[in-house]
């Protein structure tokens, strides 16, 4: 790949969104339009400045809708099934969370509920809300606050880690029991894949792509 490094800017003259500041070292660049597949990297610290965003707002909304469907399935369908004496025991995410709460590991229950359920759900609902309004060319009510919420919950969604956790648990439990993955784990795998696509999307560009209402400054 041939990363086009943006040229350092000189003096801030034009509109501020023509400039770009590297978040990792504070170097100022003039923003350049990127072609498909391009990644702009900082010439000082090599951090990614910007990626070409090929997923438009409509595609993003479609992606959010897909994630929501998969998310519901991942929570409704059992993740693993344990067979013992002809009895089938199914495990679901909320079963896991409630069991940890009952077993005096409330901290773990809260962590799991947050990182695997509430934060991902909140992220998708907020994005869906913002994008539905963006389709009509306007900012959703509460746009500013919700964008800040998105910024802060972003590092705390861990569904990908959970998929790996299911895999390890199945292997461990199989030493003693007859355990098999159930449909829910495939929904989780799909979710992890969709999240990977999402990680390439810079949500901050919604500030630029969705114009502010005329009464707002």
């Amino acid at each position: 790949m041939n990363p086009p490094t943006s040229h350092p800017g000189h003096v801030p003259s034009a509109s501020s969104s023509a400039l770009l500041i590297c978040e990792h070292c504070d170097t100022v660049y003039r923003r350049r339009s990127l072609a498909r597949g391009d990644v702009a990297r900082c010439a000082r610290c090599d951090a990614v400045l910007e990626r070409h965003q090929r997923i438009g707002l409509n595609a993003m909304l479609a992606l959010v809708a897909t994630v929501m469907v998969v998310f519901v399935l991942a929570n409704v369908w059992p993740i693993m099934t344990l067979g013992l004496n002809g009895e089938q025991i199914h495990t679901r995410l909320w079963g896991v969370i409630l069991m940890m709460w009952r077993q005096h590991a409330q901290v773990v229950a809260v962590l799991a509920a947050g990182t695997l359920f509430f934060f991902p759900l909140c992220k998708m609902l907020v994005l869906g809300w913002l994008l539905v309004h963006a389709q009509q060319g306007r900012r959703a009510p509460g746009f500013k606050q919700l964008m800040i919420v998105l910024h802060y919950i972003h590092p705390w969604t861990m569904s990908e880690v959970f998929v790996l956790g299911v895999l390890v648990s199945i292997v461990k439990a199989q030493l003693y029991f007859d355990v098999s993955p159930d449909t829910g784990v495939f929904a989780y795998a799909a979710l992890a894949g969709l999240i990977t696509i999402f990680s390439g999307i810079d949500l901050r560009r919604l500030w630029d792509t969705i114009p502010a209402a005329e009464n707002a400054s």
Partner: protein
Amino acid sequence: MSAMPRAHELGLIGCHVCGLVCRDTQIPDAACPRCGSALHRRKPNSRMRTWALLIAAFILYIPANVMPIMRTASLGDADDNTILSGVIELWVKGSPGLAVIVFTASIVVPMMKFLVLSTLLLAVHCGTNWARIQRARLYRLVEFIGYWSMLDVFVVSLLTALVQFGFFSEVEPLPGVVYFGLTVVLTMLASMSFDPRLIWDCKEEDD
């Protein structure tokens, strides 16, 4: 002016929340005109906060490793597992490949976070120019892989929920897993509160 001007040289501040490039007005409580968050050139008290969180995480990391994280009881026979013994069991009986993954997530990654973040903090403290680009890369690596340490916490939770047959066979979580979960959260907070811009803040002779 240097070839690659930094924000403060041009009197600019990038908003840490929304990324907007703002003029540095020198007013103490300036807010970003776009998102309303407080503007600051560097994350406030970055070094002290990171040290505090890192030390707290390290203190919790000791019981997380010493104390068992899970008990497997079967027909009255109880077997307590620590993080390390869980890895060994997986290596011996199950699959060595997964054992390596769990070992990486539960032991290598947290240890690496402690080492990397304290190295970064010490280097910033000394104001050295040593290996800046490598340090910047290490920081990004730590940020990127940090949350995978939650793996063992999820494994214990899943096994607890899965294996519940009362006297016959049961898995229950032990306090070690709580300490470990808290360690992961604290190390994540520590790496978030470190400001990588500090790596580049010492005087540059060349460039």
